[in-house]
């Protein structure tokens, strides 16, 4: 039995704590704007208005992946309301904490939005439907078992009397929720499972102020910041005399590791920042470079005493007795997330001692913790307004550096709202990068070419060591070894060694963390199939058990791409598969390579089994998104390090694909039921290997390092 406050009680408490402004911070805008007094919170997830409008609270962030709509669909499905009357709003992190985390997890990453909250959000919908029926039955003084609810209308079946949800919501809100509810079978879904128009799109095409950078408050000032270009460096001294005199400049802040200028517009703040002379103490990493980092990773591979992430059988003996041994080294560079919206945070220390923060965050609760820590306030004196994200991809989840900075700046101007936004250059050079890694693979094949032993040595910075220090078990970061440590192929002798080598460049979760390993593994499997003289599809299938779900997606993609038929002249194919983020994915890439060595990725066919599909069109949109996101990293993206700092500074030297590079993407959804997999990341996993395997088919050149722009593919 939960002791959660009702919304009405909560408002009273908040008003007592927060004074006259309480209503402004604790009522999410949709309810507030619509006249919250008459709306009823049936439970934490569902607010019903007298005119039957239903507001569904969403705890996860929306960064384009579509869960704002998909989660609302799941709630509405069980509630059985009229979808045309549904809107959504973000749950308040402050209220979340006060109500014992009533909304479950606010963390938005790992393609978890739907799969890790589907159970409790559906229960919330079913529970509310139950309460609404009970309330109607009580009004009629009939047994609830004689009532049905469909599309927001409750019918007393024997008498054919009806009541709408809006008519009984206030009474339903006062009833005790049921202990157990029965959830619908996916086969009976009416709202979930359909490609309904996304709830966030109309505001986005109108240019309404929905993003973190769009926040505008009375009297608000703007901040631009400069951090030490060398990670870990500090401010030694500054000369701000020229900047101080510039138009619109209100304040110049010198913090331990950044300098900020606050002005009456962002451009003025940023212009003045350029006039501040900053003497940086670059610290001990001023000479680090891509070369020293590569050497560090290579030394890791040569370390004789590495911990093992997996041991199965005796790989040394099996390699010694193998008919054929194949060896290769693969590597990939650091990569910035490059969200289109730079990092941003608006903070306002209110005169009543309460802090309000507006930010584009993948984790509202983590933002609140970071804000409270930077402010020196208890959590219940802080509210975070979750804004729509102009892309996230992992950058705005674990690290909350931008919130700490935004709050630190506003703290120097109590009573004044300050919107901090990073320049693109700042954003490019102060990321939490996809780790650069180096992997050595050694495979033993038997006389028939079958893979009997695989020894993998992985040198890769640990993301968990950066974001959750002390959380590693036995020196293994599972995010750095996966796809090898959980190899889906039946190989009798396996060994995976892990060299944790972090260096000074901060690393973080970059869409589909660990995907580099899929590039290495699936490219190497292609090498082995060729060494064995086998078709790469048949070679993979032979290593998968009959009921393995990887087999189903491989077969599905082979059918969809007509793997058994020849391609058009000049078109070459590559295949790869991966399971991850709860789903199974297999992909065929079709490419052409011209005489100058220019690669054209023409078509991607991808088959995905995510168990259930809540919004098919959005799942396809995510597959397209994964392809484009992966394509940039495959073709030309790389963050190099020189003199301790990131070399690239903007989109001219860190390119993103444009419309002419977009391949045709054919997505085959093959949900087999019985489990819930994600869609935000899985389709990126096999991309690099599928394309590089196709490039090998086209050119005979094996790509073992990315990006492709490093390689000369001229014939």
């Amino acid at each position, binding site marked *: 039995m939960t002791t959660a406050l009702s919304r009405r009680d909560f408002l009273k408490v908040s008003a007592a704590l927060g004074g006259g402004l309480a209503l402004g911070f604790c009522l999410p805008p949709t309810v507030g704007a619509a006249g919250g007094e008459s709306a009823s919170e049936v439970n934490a997830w569902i607010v019903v208005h007298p005119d039957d409008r239903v507001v569904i609270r969403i705890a996860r962030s929306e960064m384009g*992946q579509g869960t704002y709509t998909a989660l609302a669909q799941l709630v509405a499905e069980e509630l059985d309301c009229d979808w045309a009357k549904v809107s959504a709003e973000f749950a308040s992190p402050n209220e979340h904490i006060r109500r014992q985390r009533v909304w479950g997890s606010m963390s938005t990453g790992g393609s978890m939005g739907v799969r890790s909250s589907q159970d409790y959000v559906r229960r919330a919908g079913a529970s509310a439907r139950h309460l609404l029926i009970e309330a109607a039955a009580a009004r009629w003084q009939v047994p609830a078992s004689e009532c049905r609810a469909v599309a927001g209308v409750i019918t007393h079946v024997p008498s054919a009397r009806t009541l709408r949800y809006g008519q009984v919501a206030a009474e339903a809100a006062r009833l005790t929720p049921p202990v157990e509810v029965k959830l619908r079978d996916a086969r009976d879904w009416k709202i979930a499972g359909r490609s309904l128009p996304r709830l*966030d799109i109309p505001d*986005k095409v109108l240019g309404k102020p929905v993003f973190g950078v769009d926040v505008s408050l009375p009297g608000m000032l703007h901040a631009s910041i400069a951090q030490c270009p060398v990670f870990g460096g500090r401010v030694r001294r500054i000369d701000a005399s020229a900047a101080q005199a510039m138009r619109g400049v209100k304040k110049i802040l010198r913090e331990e590791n950044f300098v900020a200028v606050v002005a009456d517009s962002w451009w003025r703040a940023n212009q003045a920042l350029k006039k501040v002379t900053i003497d940086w103490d670059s610290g001990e990493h001023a000479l680090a470079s891509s070369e020293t980092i590569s050497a560090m990773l290579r030394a890791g591979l040569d370390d004789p005493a590495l911990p093992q992430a997996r041991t199965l059988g005796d790989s040394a003996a099996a390699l010694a007795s193998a008919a054929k041994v194949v060896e290769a080294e693969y590597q990939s560079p650091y990569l910035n997330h490059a969200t289109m*919206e730079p990092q941003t945070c608006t903070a306002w220390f209110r005169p009543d001692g309460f802090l309000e923060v507006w930010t584009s965050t993948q984790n509202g609760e983590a933002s609140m913790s970071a804000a409270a820590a930077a402010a020196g306030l208890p959590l219940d004196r802080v509210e975070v307004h979750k804004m729509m994200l102009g892309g996230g991809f992992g950058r705005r989840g674990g690290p909350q550096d931008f919130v700490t900075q935004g709050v630190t700046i506003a703290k120097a101007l109590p009573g004044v709202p300050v919107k901090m936004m990073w*320049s693109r250059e700042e954003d490019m050079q102060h990321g939490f990068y996809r780790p650069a890694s180096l992997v050595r693979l050694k495979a033993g094949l038997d006389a028939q070419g079958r893979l009997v032993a695989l020894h993998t040595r992985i040198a890769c910075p640990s993301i968990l060591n950066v974001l959750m220090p002390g959380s590693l078990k036995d020196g293994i970061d599972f995010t750095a070894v996966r796809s090898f440590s959980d190899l889906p192929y039946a190989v009798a002798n396996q060994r995976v060694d892990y060299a944790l080598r972090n260096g000074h460049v901060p690393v973080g979760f970059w869409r589909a963390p660990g995907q580099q390993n899929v590039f290495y593994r699936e490219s190497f499997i292609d090498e082995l199939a060729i060494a064995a003289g086998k078709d790469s599809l048949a070679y993979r299938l032979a290593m998968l058990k009959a009921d393995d779900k990887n087999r189903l997606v491989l077969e599905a993609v082979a059918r969809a791409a007509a793997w058994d038929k020849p391609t058009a002249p000049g078109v070459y194919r590559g295949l790869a598969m991966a399971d991850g983020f709860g789903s199974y994915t297999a992909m065929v890439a079709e490419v052409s390579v011209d005489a100058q060595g220019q690669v054209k990725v023409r078509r991607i066919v991808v088959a995905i089994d995510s168990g259930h599909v809540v919004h098919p069109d959005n799942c396809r949109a995510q597959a397209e998104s994964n392809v484009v996101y992966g394509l940039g990293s495959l073709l030309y993206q790389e963050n190099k390090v020189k003199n301790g700092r990131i070399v690239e500074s*903007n989109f001219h030297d860190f390119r*993103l694909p*444009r*419309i002419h590079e977009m391949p045709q993407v054919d997505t085959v959804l093959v949900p087999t039921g019985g489990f819930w997999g994600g869609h935000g990341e899985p389709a990126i996993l096999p991309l690099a290997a599928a394309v590089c395997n196709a490039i090998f088919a086209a050119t005979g050149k094996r790509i073992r390092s990315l990006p492709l722009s490093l390689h000369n593919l001229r014939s």
Partner: protein
Amino acid sequence: MLEFTVNNRAVALDVEPEMPLLWVLRDHLDLPGTKYSCGIAVCGACTVLLDGEAVRACALPVSRVAGRQVVTIEGLAQDGLHRVQRAWIEHQVPQCGYCQTGMIMSAVALLAKNPRPSDAEIDATMSNLCRCGTYARVRKAIHALATPPAGG
């Protein structure tokens, strides 16, 4: 005092002549639909119409728009939705949506000049960057907006 027209509204501002139009729109005229992303005219998130032409507001000094007509996403439809915005909803184009206001302005300019653009013309004109990868849907929406050939 710098004078020009934004969304059919005459404005007069005392700002630095070198301030890019983007920041005048966002911070001085409270029109945040036009986005900052690169600041160097590469990505197109800041695309607006200047006398009907698509321009990148982040690298355009406001002095250059004196006496001219600027249209932003907020002023695209007199009321309701512009047909390009409707097509964007119909084809469910946006994901995160951050680049989409610029993308829509580029599409409006393209279709005004070329009512039936070919794929190659779309490739050549729609140079806006989208990190979410909405390109296939952008193309589809533009084709759907093409005026049918006369006569036929």
